[in-house]
């Protein structure tokens, strides 16, 4: 039972904690920025754009959450999450500035 | 009334799905099903469930599909409970279900 032995090491516990943090907080911010961008991109009325993007948000959150637990390397999770959040944020700023 | 018919159809469909499984068929009828029988049960299950879906949707698309989800849940529950505790009843259901459906259709035509 290598699984049970693993469970006791501090390292393992920390990696679990980090994964949950990535999934919850990283997932949250990723979703928040991506729906903000989505609402800007949708070519509908303002109310409708908000409603559509809000309805899609939970779907995005779930996909990110599952993906975080599906990917093996911790480094890749954090780096891709942070860079994509930054990218989304910059893109949103750019479009808003452009308008 | 029409939703009752849809419910019966749904129950019938899941009955057929259950009987298409060798273990369940054996616990009800005592013999192993032939491959032909399994195939037939499966096919009829799909046809009947499609019918049930259509009957539900014919009433109202949104409300009907909600009903359909609920009916599926109830059907699976009833069939599972029946298979576990009263497998004998399943055999009578084989004749009872079509009979009930016919009665329902006829009575809805009469009244």
């Amino acid at each position, binding site marked *: 039972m290598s699984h049970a032995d693993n469970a006791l090491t501090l390292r393992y516990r920390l990696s679990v904690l980090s994964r949950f943090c990535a999934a919850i907080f990283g997932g949250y911010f990723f979703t928040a920025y991506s729906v903000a961008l989505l*609402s800007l991109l949708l070519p509908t009325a303002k109310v409708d754009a908000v409603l559509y993007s809000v309805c899609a948000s939970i779907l995005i959150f*779930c996909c990110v959450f599952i993906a975080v637990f*599906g990917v093996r390397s911790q480094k890749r999770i954090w780096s891709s999450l942070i860079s994509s959040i930054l990218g989304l944020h910059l893109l949103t700023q750019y479009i808003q500035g452009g308008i | 009334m029409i939703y009752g018919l849809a419910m019966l159809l749904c129950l019938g469909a899941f009955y057929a*799905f259950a009987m298409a499984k060798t273990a369940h068929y054996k616990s009800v009828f005592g013999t192993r099903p032939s491959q032909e029988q399994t195939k037939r049960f499966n096919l009829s299950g799909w046809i009947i469930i499609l019918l049930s879906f259509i009957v539900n949707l014919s009433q109202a698309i949104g409300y009907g599909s909600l009903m359909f989800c609920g009916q599926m*849940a109830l059907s*699976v*529950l009833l069939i*599972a409970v029946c298979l576990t505790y009263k497998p004998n009843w399943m055999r009578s259901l084989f004749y009872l279900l079509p009979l009930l459906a016919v009665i329902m259709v006829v009575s809805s035509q009469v009244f």
Partner: protein
Amino acid sequence: MKESFFRSMTWLHTWVGLLLCWLLFLIFFAGTISFFRHEISLWNQPAVHNIDHNKQQQQTLIESGLAYLNSAAPEANRWWIGLPSSRQPELQVSHRHSQGEGKRDKWHDERLDPNTLLPIEGLVDTKGGNFFYRLHFDLHYMDRKLARWLVCFASLFMLIALISGIVIHKRIFKDLFQFRPQKGVRAWLDAHNLSSVLALPFHLMITYTGLITLIFMLFPNPAETLYEDGLKGFRADFYPERQRIEASNKKLDEPAFEAAFTHFYQNWPEQKIKRVIVDHPSNTAVNIKIYGDNGTLIRDEYPYWQYSGTTGELLKTARLDPSNAEMLYGGMIAVHSGRLAHPGLRWLYFICGIAGCVMIASGCIMWAKRIKERLKPTQTASFGLKLVETLNIATIMGLPLATAGFFYANRLLPPDMVARADKEVLVFFVVWLATTLFTSLFRDKRAWQWLAYCNAAIWLLLPVCSALTTHSNLLTYIQDGKWILASFDLAFITTALVFYLQAKKLANKATANKSVSNKRTRVTAEQRA
């Protein structure tokens, strides 16, 4: 890679499911009961039981509601008329009064018999089904905002657990009907699979749409990016009917009700009305707001007409022709709350909700059993295991018991008690706390069995208690065709029966278990060796 993904999903399913399982059980349980929110409010209010079904025209009802309010509260800043439905037989007339600067306006609620149009006598102070409705997302004794975040968090975990559960349960349709009650932990696994698969569309739908109901708290970002003043601006755009109307100083003797309603009935003769609100009925700022009934349409917000009370002309309408986005969003919320459901669908909702409770409960129980199995015979139970077992039994057995306590309190507390509604809620929590204290001391199979018997007895006596305190019982309900009340009694008896069967089964197991458990430990020991 595929194998490791599968393993990580199993792991995710266990942890995400279990971290908040008791909170989830509470949410599911309260939500399931809230499908009968108005019915419970009716049951809790015996004075309303004897009211006959409304036979009046809606026009007459509205007119008499307005006349009643005009004589009872001409100075109110808002009148509110709720028309009777099949779930709420009474005509609700409420008026709201300003309490001066900085204070919240105060509501006075009254109810009229729709047939005699007289106020109903002998109402008691009770929260009714609204208690469970609020408990479902506001919890209780807790800051509202924090509670809602917690509930959202739990729901998100639920959704993740569902998705990962589908991934790991490969043979999802293969052993769909399988339930083997004789096989120990295997039986719990079967119960878990069966209850989750049979209502899988419901579970996914209810969790997703549940998150959507609180979505603007979770993700205000789209509204904040598109609107200058954020959510406020979005709300003003999306809910034109919520725009505040300021009072004016000029008095008005008689608002133009007749002109407004004549216009409405002429142009929308088929429209059923859900409620009528009149803002500032005594001055020239008067506005008449009419909310249409959606019936069984999958929509959440009601179609809306606003008339000027001085001239009787139509000022604005909303949602007469909703856009696709509104249909999507409103549809999700409508499907979640199930307000549209007729009794048939409502019971199906209820059954699916119970399946959800069973799913969560069996998951919790399996977890405790697995930890226990892993213990070596010489080891004593750790604090964690004790905690898990205590919480399991306290939530799974304690919540139904507390609910019964709430119903008893409604019937047995004196009607003229001060703050009676809060006392009912207090009884709910006291019973729950007592169960928790009991289970922190005893949490073996005996405790389960004892609490199951306790539940069975209490639920069985509930119809008796109700019959003794209200002058009517199951038979008279059936005779008078009061199906809602009759089904309450039948549901109580069924609940009692289910708990009795469970208790009996536990008793059988407790005697059979000794020999089996000996055998099992020997077998596992051999396997390990």
